[in-house]
């Protein structure tokens, strides 16, 4: 049976992880390769590296970093942040990335999804969607890290992304992100029913039960989190043995 995936997400600035990582032996601003390798060893199923560098030079550093990640880490990883053209994606593919995630650039230019899927295959293209709950079934898709609302709505945009060739959807609820009260399970379950590609849930993980809920009520294929892993609030081995005990199929 296919295992539910646990995915730590690392934010990268100028080639280093940010957000005050507090692992013993790793500096507060540390080497993403070292941290990624540690997560892989602990049983992470995939990794996501998000480049939050704005400068052109920083982007070059990121491509070099992606190559180092590919050389040292033996599980699949996705890279995202600032990818707006085919050539950005190609540089990351050539550096060894397994998947890329596109977010604001896909909202501004949906054809980018088709172009990426056609050139590199759907398995390479993760469409990340940040959305804010409005009312009822209505979720407003936002860009620029949740700062700018758009005309797009979550469910129709996710469906469109699938039809254009996305291989996976990474949905972050801006209402749940950082609050640690659990994932947006109702919306996730609807996405999972509406779409036939895998859904990665992001935003809201605060304890182990939240992961159980996202895989049962939320019907997500994967759960992504950052700070709870970085701050060692939840250890990946503990989380996986908990989920296993709760009857959820995970890779141990």
């Amino acid at each position: 049976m296919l295992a539910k995936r646990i995915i730590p997400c690392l934010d990268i600035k100028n080639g280093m992880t940010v957000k005050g990582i507090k692992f013993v032996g790793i500096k507060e601003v540390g080497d993403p390769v070292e941290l990624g390798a540690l997560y892989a060893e602990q049983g992470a199923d995939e990794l996501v590296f998000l480049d939050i560098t704005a400068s052109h030079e920083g982007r070059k550093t990121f491509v070099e970093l992606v190559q180092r990640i590919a050389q040292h880490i033996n599980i699949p990883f996705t890279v995202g942040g600032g990818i707006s053209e085919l050539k950005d994606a190609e540089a990351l593919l050539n550096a060894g990335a397994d998947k890329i995630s596109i977010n604001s650039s896909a909202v501004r230019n949906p054809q980018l999804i088709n172009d990426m899927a056609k050139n590199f295959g759907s398995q390479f293209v993760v469409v990340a969607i940040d959305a804010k709950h409005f009312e009822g079934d209505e979720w407003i898709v936002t860009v620029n890290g949740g700062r700018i609302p758009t005309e797009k709505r979550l469910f129709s945009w996710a469906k469109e992304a699938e039809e254009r060739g996305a291989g996976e959807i990474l949905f972050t609820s801006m209402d749940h992100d950082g609050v640690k009260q659990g994932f947006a399970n109702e919306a996730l379950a609807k996405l999972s029913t509406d779409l036939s590609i895998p859904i990665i849930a992001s935003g809201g993980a605060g304890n182990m039960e939240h992961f159980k809920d996202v895989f049962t009520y939320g019907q997500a294929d994967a759960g992504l989190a950052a700070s709870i892993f970085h701050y060692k609030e939840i250890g990946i081995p503990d989380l996986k043995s908990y989920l296993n005990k709760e009857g959820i199929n995970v890779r141990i």
Partner: protein
Amino acid sequence: MKIAIIKYNAGNIRSVSFALDRLGVEHVITADPEEIRSADKVIFPGVGEASSTMKYLKENKLDELILGLKQPVLGICLGMQLMCSHSEEGDVKCLGIFDEKVKKFELPSPNSENIKVPHMGWNALVNVNSALFDASLEKEYVYFVHSYYVALGEHTAATTNYILPYSSALHKDNFYATQFHPEKSGDVGSRILENFIKL
């Protein structure tokens, strides 16, 4: 020991190369027929679409080259599918090393468990039975990404369950193949690559 990774228009060649680097195994990425023929082992990786890749192999005479190899050969993912007789992806005749055919996963109807295609993520190997696998690999998880599958047949070397039980590995004579990506399957994947290298 020299390993040749066949260079062609596929996506994940460098990932395989990086995995061999991690194992400290000398290798070349090459399209040179002599270099491939003289290698101790050959890896035929692959991420991409079947019919266009098959066309590329023919145009570059890599099809005849692969068929004529006598040393151990390992096909990975699309590499494995192209070693079968036919693929539904682009309705294309493939290399025919294995008699098995490649079919598209069909979603169950009704799809009450929200099963997705592609089959993406970690799934278990069962009934492992070739030199690629030692007994310790039974029920271990490996990483898959694919929308087409090879049915169970006489050359099945490992089985995985997704929608139905299918061939997650094949073996016939000197030809070995895995539907999953050993180069992305953590320590379990490394053990499988090591088993291939030790053949």
